[in-house]
């Protein structure tokens, strides 16, 4: 009996937490499919006629469309370059840097300690001087600090988990260091590395402050989405909701993938 009560209480608490966590998201998603008059009713409507007008509006709006395009370009370029530069660096740190390895790793991590606002103002001046203010290239450049350091920070433990013996066995078969990395370390660490890349993607996809300060016309989606909220009294709630859905969709999909990956990793245990 006591067990039944405690299970019921646990379930109730869990349900409450889920409602608290998912409620706003659900409301936003519902709002994205509502017409404005369905949104601004005093009594919330759960049954309504869904419309795709809001999505049509934002996809027809050149500012939002450009913002989406810029986000995709900036984020994929910075994550890609971050991976290409960060993953080999992480392998080197995990395997070959005996003396300075820890210091370098701490330095890389320390890049993440720094609040972006601390560098935002100086960067405006530097970027204006260099002529890369308000360019996608400039944004990619500053995001690389985040992506490279995050990729390194997450990939070092992934490579450390690759058994040393396997790399040595490959070396015994005549593989040079580059071949060992490419044919053994990389495939074996791939699942963890994928997680690291997804995490990095979400991090820069959601980035607002640097994009807000270093770009004007060529802003990314978070900046555009934020600007819609300051349109005055005639707030187009439906459009805002649709823009938000569009914004959170890629991270949500990736987080879903990440969770699935984490679960399979936990289930199969360390190899």
């Amino acid at each position: 009996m006591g067990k039944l009560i405690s299970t019921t209480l646990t379930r109730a608490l869990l349900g409450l937490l889920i409602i608290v966590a998912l409620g706003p998201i659900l409301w936003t998603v519902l709002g994205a499919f509502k017409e404005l008059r369905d949104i601004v009713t005093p009594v919330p409507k759960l049954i309504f006629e869904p419309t795709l007008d809001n999505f049509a509006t934002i996809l027809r709006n050149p500012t939002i469309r450009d913002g989406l395009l810029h986000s995709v370009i900036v984020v994929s370029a910075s994550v890609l370059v971050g991976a290409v530069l960060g993953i080999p660096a992480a392998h080197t740190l995990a395997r070959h840097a005996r003396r300075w390895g820890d210091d370098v790793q701490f330095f890389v991590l320390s890049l993440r300690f720094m609040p972006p606002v601390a560098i935002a103002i100086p960067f405006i001046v530097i970027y204006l001087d260099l002529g890369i203010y308000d360019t996608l290239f400039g944004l990619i450049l500053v995001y690389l600090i985040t992506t490279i350091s995050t990729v390194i920070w997450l990939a070092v433990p992934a490579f450390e988990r690759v058994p040393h013996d396997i790399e040595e066995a490959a070396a015994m078969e005549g593989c040079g260091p580059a071949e060992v990395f490419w044919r053994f370390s990389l495939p074996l660490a791939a699942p963890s590395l994928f997680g690291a890349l997804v995490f990095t993607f979400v991090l820069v996809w959601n980035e607002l402050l640097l994009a807000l300060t270093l770009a004007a016309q060529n802003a990314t989606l978070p900046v555009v989405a934020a600007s819609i909220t300051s349109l005055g009294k005639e707030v187009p709630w439906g459009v805002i909701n649709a823009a938000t859905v569009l914004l959170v969709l890629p991270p949500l999909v990736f987080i879903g993938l990440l969770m699935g990956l984490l679960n399979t990793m936990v289930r199969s245990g360390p190899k």
Partner: protein
Amino acid sequence: MAHIHCTDIVKSYGAHPVISGLNLDIPNHEFVVFLGPSGCGKSTMLRMIAGLEEVSGGRIEIGGTDVTDLPPGERGVAMVFQSYALYPHMSVADNITFGLRRQGVSKAEIAPRLKQVAEVLGLEQFLDRRPKNLSGGQQQRVAMARAMIKTPKVFLFDEPLSNLDAKLREKLRTEIRRMHLKLKTTTIFVTHDQLEAMTIADRIVLMRDGMIEQMGTPDEIFERPASRFVADFIGTPAMNFVTATLEAGLIARSGSIKLQLSEAEFPSLNPGQEVELGLRPARMDLCAPGSANALTGEVVLVENMGAEGQVITEVDGAEISFVTQGFRDLSIGDTVHFTIRPEHIHVFDPKTGRSLRKD
């Protein structure tokens, strides 16, 4: 032609020397075991021969070629690791043939060789599986197949059986020995298990603190240990040690113990000299009271080992054990007499620990 020649090998990590000035010659076709307690440098030595570890000084030659500065893949050696080190993202067949495929050997040539090694090691039905779906013993066979298929000049085994259970270890040990008798490839095998070393080796290199303590056939190591350390390390149950004083006529006395030593083996001993006697439990047995070289003690414990038993006795307050088939008639508290032949008594210098046997 693959004899191994190591000259003045030095290895140090920072200021900490692990191996200092080691010289070693391994003739072609020989099965050599590096034996020693953990931290004695035996694995380091193997890894330096493999090329996985750089030497701090000295030269290594394999088959007449100086390989000291060559990468592992160009030394013509193959290694089997303690952890098997199979490639988890490849099938068993791909694991075995990886090295050959990498060298660009044609498929037509690889197939029969794969079939042959798989047959020798009984892996035919596992070739399509992934390593993680195999048992430890099967995985180690795959690792051996991977080493064999390259027909290397030298096989290196780094404690390959340590992760297996006792029965499987014995079985694979025999298989490795058989394989060597057939292939005759020069082999170095590292282990800390003295029984494994004794059963498998042509020659044992017994190491301690980065130095070779003794090098010789299993018989030499067992019957003529060069030092107290070797005598203590080899043989189960472990050797008994008794400090004694020599008397005229090459008699060693310690309390009630009075033992005649062999004149032929120890001609240089003098009366009055302090020595340490080494008595192998397996070389002693029950005897009638008053027999020559008899020891008398009180039974403290009897350990049944099946065909024979180890009897631990107390002689003058110190424990001395011996092995006998007649252990079943003994019980705790009994007074027993047991004896050892003079030629089976080892004598060591108590200060240096070196054997006082004539060379």
